[in-house]
């Protein structure tokens, strides 16, 4: 055989092997499921994505949204925000009903729902998940307050439950020697296996809200003790799904918990019935058999997959919004090509974007007129139109518009672009037309293209009145270090609601909350602080709103921050996805969603 023939033969064999390998079928998951009654049906698989990898699946150790989305589907909390009703209100998850409040307004009495079971796991006797009892709730709250476990989110309940702050301090002292059994918390009382009570330090209409946070999810002591450090990769919950395949940077697969206790909401908002959102009222959830969550960090590949029907739901980023949607007087719409294929939602976020001044900065901190000049020089409306495709609303109060106590109730006003006033204030500040004013450095938490463009816009704006800005593009951790150490002049910031109450936003400027708390401006104003304390424990209503209006006036005059805008979030979902209603307090409500499998197969 000649060398040429040998080479040809070898090449052909290699090509055949390569072809064979490339044609190897991808691992196929079963495409049908059989329920407990023996009925076989098409498996309902929901394809979504993770934009960033999660940090931890230990509820008490996580504080990032990627982890929270997974934790919310694996574990349960005592409450969640009602999936359909607006404004957002609490609804019980692990409780048979909403807790009752004692006459003195200090003690809540809870009753657990019967028949709630943890998922089967070797950590339990015989590997069979046991029933949830009161001890699990008390253990989980204590674990949340354990400073050796939770270093990120204790402030959610700080000062609100009798004895819990002392417990928190004690765990800090004891370290690894902490033994929950030896550290009772006076405000947490077990009545029996189904009933317990929580006693508050004072009357507080917001006291129950933290129990809807994923950080206070209910965990089983057996699982924590068995898996120890590995517990954050081996979650054992009572939630609607469990982890079938764990892959932090690959495809995470969640499978339905067949014994889940929940049902679809029986009530909704006006219009929900007409739009079919109550068709499954009272039915057992979840409907979906499996959720596939690949990690796709770049928006373009994710959007391509969505357009091919390989992803069922996706957020619509700025660049794709330009291409796929438009805004007119009636609102936001998908282009004709896309509206035939997909559905879109537009929901105002519970987020407030703002700029922070460091009040300890010798230039900005001591010159109120200069801060006011900058506030007048900003064209927030123009920014939203130009840089955000109109996907937001300028804010006239520190509270996002959908939350009670926002500008809709307080009827407050705020700075808007006014070049004349900006120049007047600059002159008042001692820098007529910006003459003699040094460069001001503004810190950003990333250096991506969108951030750079945001900076360019801001620089152009301020340069029209003679203010020169310089950027400090930081990594997120470097940004936090700078901000928390007070080593900055100006910084961009945003705050998403931990719970849908205006207090969560007004606390951003409360004096004692200075860094490392969220008041990064280090601004302190005795009158504001007093008003904040007065408003904190008041129920929503005219009295509270009047206090908010007074606080707003102080903020407007002092300008420790410049409140800018409230973003509107957009998303697209496939026509075969059912029960979709964007809930800004539940980013991953998979348990309520369903898939029209026949429609999906047909592609409609």
């Amino acid at each position: 055989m000649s060398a040429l023939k040998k080479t040809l033969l070898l090449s052909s064999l290699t090509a055949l092997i390569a072809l064979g390998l490339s044609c190897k079928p991808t691992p196929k998951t079963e495409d049908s499921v059989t329920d407990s009654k023996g009925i076989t049906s098409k498996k309902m698989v929901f394809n979504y994505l993770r934009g960033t990898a999660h940090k931890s699946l230990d509820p008490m150790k996580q504080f990032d949204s990627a982890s929270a989305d997974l934790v919310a589907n694996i574990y349960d909390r005592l409450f969640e925000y009602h999936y359909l009703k607006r404004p957002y209100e609490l609804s019980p998850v692990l409780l048979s009903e909403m807790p009752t409040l004692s006459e003195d307004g200090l003690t809540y009495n809870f009753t657990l729902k019967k028949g709630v079971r943890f998922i089967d796991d070797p950590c339990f006797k015989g590997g069979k998940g046991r029933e949830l009892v009161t001890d699990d709730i008390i253990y989980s709250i204590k674990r949340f307050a354990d400073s050796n476990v939770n270093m990120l989110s204790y402030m959610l309940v700080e000062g609100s439950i009798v004895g819990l702050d002392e417990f928190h301090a004690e765990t800090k002292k004891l370290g690894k020697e902490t033994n929950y059994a030896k550290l009772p918390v006076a405000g947490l009382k077990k009545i029996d296996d189904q009933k317990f009570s929580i006693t508050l330090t004072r009357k507080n209409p917001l006291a129950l809200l933290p129990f809807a946070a994923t950080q206070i999810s209910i965990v089983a002591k057996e699982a924590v003790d068995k898996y120890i450090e590995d517990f954050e990769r081996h979650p054992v919950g009572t939630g609607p799904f469990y982890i079938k395949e764990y892959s932090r940077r690959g495809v995470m697969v969640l499978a339905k918990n067949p014994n889940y206790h929940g049902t679809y909401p029986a009530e909704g908002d006006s219009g929900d019935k007409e739009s079919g959102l109550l068709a499954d009222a009272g039915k057992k959830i979840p409907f979906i058999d499996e959720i596939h969550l690949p990690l796709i960090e770049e928006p373009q590949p994710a959007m391509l997959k969505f357009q091919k029907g390989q992803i069922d739901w996706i957020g619509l980023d700025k660049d794709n919004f330009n291409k796929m949607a438009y805004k007119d007087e009636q609102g936001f719409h998908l282009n004709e090509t896309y509206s035939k294929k997909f559905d879109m939602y537009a929901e105002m976020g519970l987020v407030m974007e703002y700029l922070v001044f460091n009040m300890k900065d010798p230039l900005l901190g001591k010159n109120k007129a200069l801060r006011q000049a900058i506030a007048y020089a900003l064209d927030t409306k123009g920014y939203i139109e130009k840089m955000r495709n109109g996907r937001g609303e300028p804010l006239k109060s520190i509270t996002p518009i959908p939350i009670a106590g926002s500008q809709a109730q307080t009827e407050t006003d705020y700075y808007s672009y006014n070049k004349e006033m900006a120049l007047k204030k600059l002159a008042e500040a001692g820098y007529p037309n910006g003459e003699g004013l040094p460069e001001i450095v503004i810190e950003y938490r990333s250096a991506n293209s969108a951030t750079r463009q945001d900076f360019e816009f801001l620089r152009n704006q301020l340069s029209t009145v003679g203010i020169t800005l310089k950027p400090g593009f930081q990594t997120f951790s470097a940004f936090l270090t700078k901000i928390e150490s007070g080593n900055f002049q100006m910084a961009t910031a945003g705050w998403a609601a931990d719970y849908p109450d205006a207090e969560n936003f007004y606390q951003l400027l409360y004096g004692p909350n200075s860094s490392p708390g969220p008041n990064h401006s280090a601004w302190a104003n005795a009158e504001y602080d007093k008003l904040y304390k007065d408003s904190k424990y008041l129920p929503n209503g005219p009295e509270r709103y009047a206090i908010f209006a007074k606080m707003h006036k102080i903020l407007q005059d002092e300008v420790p921050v410049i409140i800018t805008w409230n973003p509107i979030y957009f998303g697209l979902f496939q026509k075969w996805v059912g029960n979709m209603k964007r809930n800004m307090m539940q980013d991953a409500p998979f348990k309520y969603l369903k898939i029209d499998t026949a429609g999906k197969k047909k592609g409609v």
Partner: protein
Amino acid sequence: MSTQVANNSLGRRALQKLLRQKLTVICFVVIIIYLSIALLGALNLLPDFQARVGESYEPPSLSIAKIFGTDIFGRSVLFKLLAGTKTAISIGFLVTSIAVPIGITLGSLAGYYGGKIDGFVVWLFSVIVSVPYLLMVIAISYVLGKGMLSMCIAMGSIGWVGLCRLIRAEFLKHKEREYVLAARLLGANDYNLIFKQILPNVLHLAIITASLQVLGAIKSEVILTYLGVGVQDGSSWGSMISDATGELVNGHWWPLAGVVITMFFIIYALNVVGDALRDALDPKLVD
């Protein structure tokens, strides 16, 4: 003395050889044009890239400012490219001017003296090359603080390794050659032997490496800025490419096209000139 004569003759012949190649001459001209743009930028004689020349995302047209269209703020893409050229060329030459002297000095000392000095230099560059280049540059940039200067220092403090290894190897060969032994017998000291006898005979390697170093630094700046750790303020090709990721989706192709064309010419020219220099200066390849 005879070595100097040989070198002059080699230099002359190399120059003649280079000038005979039309493509190399054209590429030289291209490099000179880019250098001139950078020089004009340094003297603040380039048009202001921040100035608005039209509407947002105007496609290319025949007006000079809009020959590559406009960006989101209506600024001229051409003016941004010119400002980016200044950034890229400045970085290219700054990095080279840091890396080449370090590479030559350490390589010469290690190759000539051997022993512990050689051991230390080999250990040092082995440690540096054991960490991926970009990761190392990013790490140093973070330590020094972001910005153009720290990026140049980071790239320069790593970029000497390749040249150092070459020079060291050449010194190991040359230090046993007859002309070095003869000079030593005639009483030449170490300084004389290193810098006056051996170095002129291996300097062509430094010239070739320097031309490639400029190229590497320009590419690294683009990558680092794209990743968000490079140039913080001002125009950069990297930030323009980064912006283009979103612009392309909406059919705004011209900013990216402008960067690609601008980068292509300088990278191609530096490659051609680097190759031509290697061919011309390598004594083994000289006619």
